[in-house]
């Protein structure tokens, strides 16, 4: 049988980063200088936060799994930079970038990694389980694809409440083969829900390349057609393109209450998690190629330098500030206290934490 043509990362997307074709798109052209600088700053902050995490992990201070977002920054940055009051997001375990983008602080994010009570989830969630519902961020989910129905439900709630909003449900290229994702696709389309499924296609699910995991020969987003849903593919190395195309999907969600699948081609520079020695399934050359030619943070920096929005001095300042912020967060995460043994049994049940005459539960609910 002939090998199907795999569109994992179309060659056209591998061209060296140059001026973005999407700079003139209205969502980008309408950005003020300050907004552009703020967006670049956020991308740089994600990069430096993640790189600081590596050092803390290597010092043995972060337990469990640590999945880095380095290389994928433009995906979270581009999509989330467009969101408004009634737009929500939910993602998998590669969730730090999304957290910083919605406005979580480096301190609470870093302290969650070291399992401190000052962490965003008070040391109960860890790297894979960041949450900031006050910022419309509903996690941080450790089970591949399990968040897709939840995101669809958030969109259902937005619609039920009569709000003009949406939910962006992110997942990886491996997650698209989970049944729950397909059930969510069908429900989203059947019920006209304002959900945008964002497939962050970084080419690999752990050590399995997309061509070894997916039978469908076309791009992953095309599966949307099977569910009568709109779809698009995006070069995720260009934050302007991410914004331009996501804006169309958002409009579809807001104006027509219709779902979209967006497949965003991106790349991760480090192993699947810090536990992955990254030696068996891809070439060092491939990583080098992406890093040198397609880096989304550098590409945006170059773009803004060309636009004379950034100067080399300002860029240096932004990067140094981000590094200093990450350093301070590392100290905060190191020096913060652990949760206590008594904390282990808090936050299991709302009714237990709030017992009173109005609660509907009695009896023993935490057992010896």
């Amino acid at each position, binding site marked *: 049988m002939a090998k199907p043509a795999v569109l994992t990362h179309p060659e056209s997307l591998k061209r060296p980063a140059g001026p973005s074709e999407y700079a003139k798109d209205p969502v980008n052209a309408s950005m003020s200088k300050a907004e552009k600088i703020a967006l670049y700053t956020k991308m740089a902050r994600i990069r430096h936060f993640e790189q600081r995490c590596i050092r803390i992990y290597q010092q043995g201070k972060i337990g469990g799994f640590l999945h880095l977002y380095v290389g994928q920054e433009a995906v979270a940055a581009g999509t989330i930079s467009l969101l408004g009051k009634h737009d929500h997001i939910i993602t998998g375990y590669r969730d730090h970038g999304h957290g910083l983008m919605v406005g979580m602080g480096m301190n609470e994010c870093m302290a969650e990694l070291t399992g401190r009570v000052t962490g965003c989830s008070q040391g109960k*969630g860890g790297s894979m389980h960041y*949450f900031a519902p006050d910022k419309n961020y509903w996690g941080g989910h450790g089970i591949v694809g*399990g968040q897709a129905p939840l995101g669809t439900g958030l969109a*259902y709630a937005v619609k*039920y409440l009569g709000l003009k909003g949406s939910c962006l449900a992110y997942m990886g290229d491996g997650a698209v083969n989970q049944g*729950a994702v397909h059930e969510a696709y069908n429900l989203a389309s059947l019920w006209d829900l304002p959900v945008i499924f964002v497939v962050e296609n970084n080419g690999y699910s752990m050590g399995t390349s997309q061509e070894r995991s997916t039978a469908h020969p076309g791009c992953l987003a095309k599966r949307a057609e099977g569910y009568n849903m709109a779809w698009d593919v995006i070069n995720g190395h260009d934050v302007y393109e991410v914004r331009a195309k996501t804006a169309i999907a958002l409009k579809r969600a807001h104006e027509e209450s219709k779902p979209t699948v967006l497949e965003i081609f991106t790349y991760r520079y480090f192993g699947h998690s810090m536990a992955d020695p990254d030696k068996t399934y891809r070439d060092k050359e491939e990583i080098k190629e992406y890093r040198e030619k397609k880096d989304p943070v550098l590409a945006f920096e170059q773009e803004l330098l060309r636009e004379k929005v950034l100067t080399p001095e300002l860029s240096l300042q932004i990067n140094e500030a981000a590094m200093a912020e990450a350093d301070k967060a590392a100290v905060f995460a190191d020096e913060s206290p652990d949760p206590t043994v008594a904390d282990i049994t808090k936050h299991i049940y709302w009714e237990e934490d709030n017992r009173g005459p109005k609660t509907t539960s009695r*009896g023993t609910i*935490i057992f010896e």
Partner: protein
Amino acid sequence: MAVISYREALRAAMREELKRDDKVVIMGEEVAQFNGAYKVTEGLLKEFGPKRIVDTPISEAGFIGLGIGASMLGIRPVMELMFWSFSYVAFDQIVNNAGNIRYMSGGLINCPIVIRGPANGGTNVGATHSHTPEAILASHPGIKVVCPATPYDAKGLMKAAIRDNDPVYVMENTILYNDKGEVPDEDYIVPLGVADVKRVGTDLTIVAHGRAVITSLKAAEILEKEHGVSVEVVDLRSIRPLDEETILASVRKTHRALLVEENKPFCGVDAQVAYLIQSKAFDELDAPIHRVSSIDAPQIYCKRMEDLQMPNVERVVAEALKVLA
């Protein structure tokens, strides 16, 4: 007080809560147009319309996950599973997502969802459709499980479950759907975690839940009439939270305990109850604790054998006499 069926009691609870709170939504396979596979939701579509009463495709993981996501934003979905046996294809959503979200978010997110439907054997439908997952699910901190045995409890527990701010899984019983009982006309709830002494006695405590309560009450009558024994029957009603005090108070009075459930014996609810009694009332016991549960095999199809596989009045009477010997 009206005399209504267990099915009508459940429906009345949902109707009243749908009226009380416009965030309540009923969802599931065949709940709307078809009026419910077991007619529990009959008439609700007509009364409340398709925004509140929603038919889903056969996608348990998808629609239950959707309900969980919606509940995080303040919707209060009441999801029907045609059978709790089908929860297994949605296990990740039911356990990992609904059960863990509050904890993993350090208390930032709640999941006020109700999942309900029948969870029972005894209907001659074979192993795949006869699961009783109350013990499996109650073993997960973050989840609540109730098993009503009477119309009064079905209504009161369902209303409490809908008002509760945590995920509550209501396990009903198709064999009880037509059972009738008195239900007050005025608004009431049965709080979760409160057991009910369904029959007062002095010689033996039977602890049961779900339809095993009904079986145990029948056995208690025979034990009284034919053997002159006074049996107290404690209906747990709620598995988690568990009313430890009512169980212990009864055992302190009778000094003997028989535990009856329709689960299989291994890691059943009564394994936990037996541990509770021996750890907190060991000195009160005049005899070892005994259990009656379903014979430890996948549910058999043959109706005659299934009736023997499950706890029945004869088996409960025989085991009770052993505890009393």
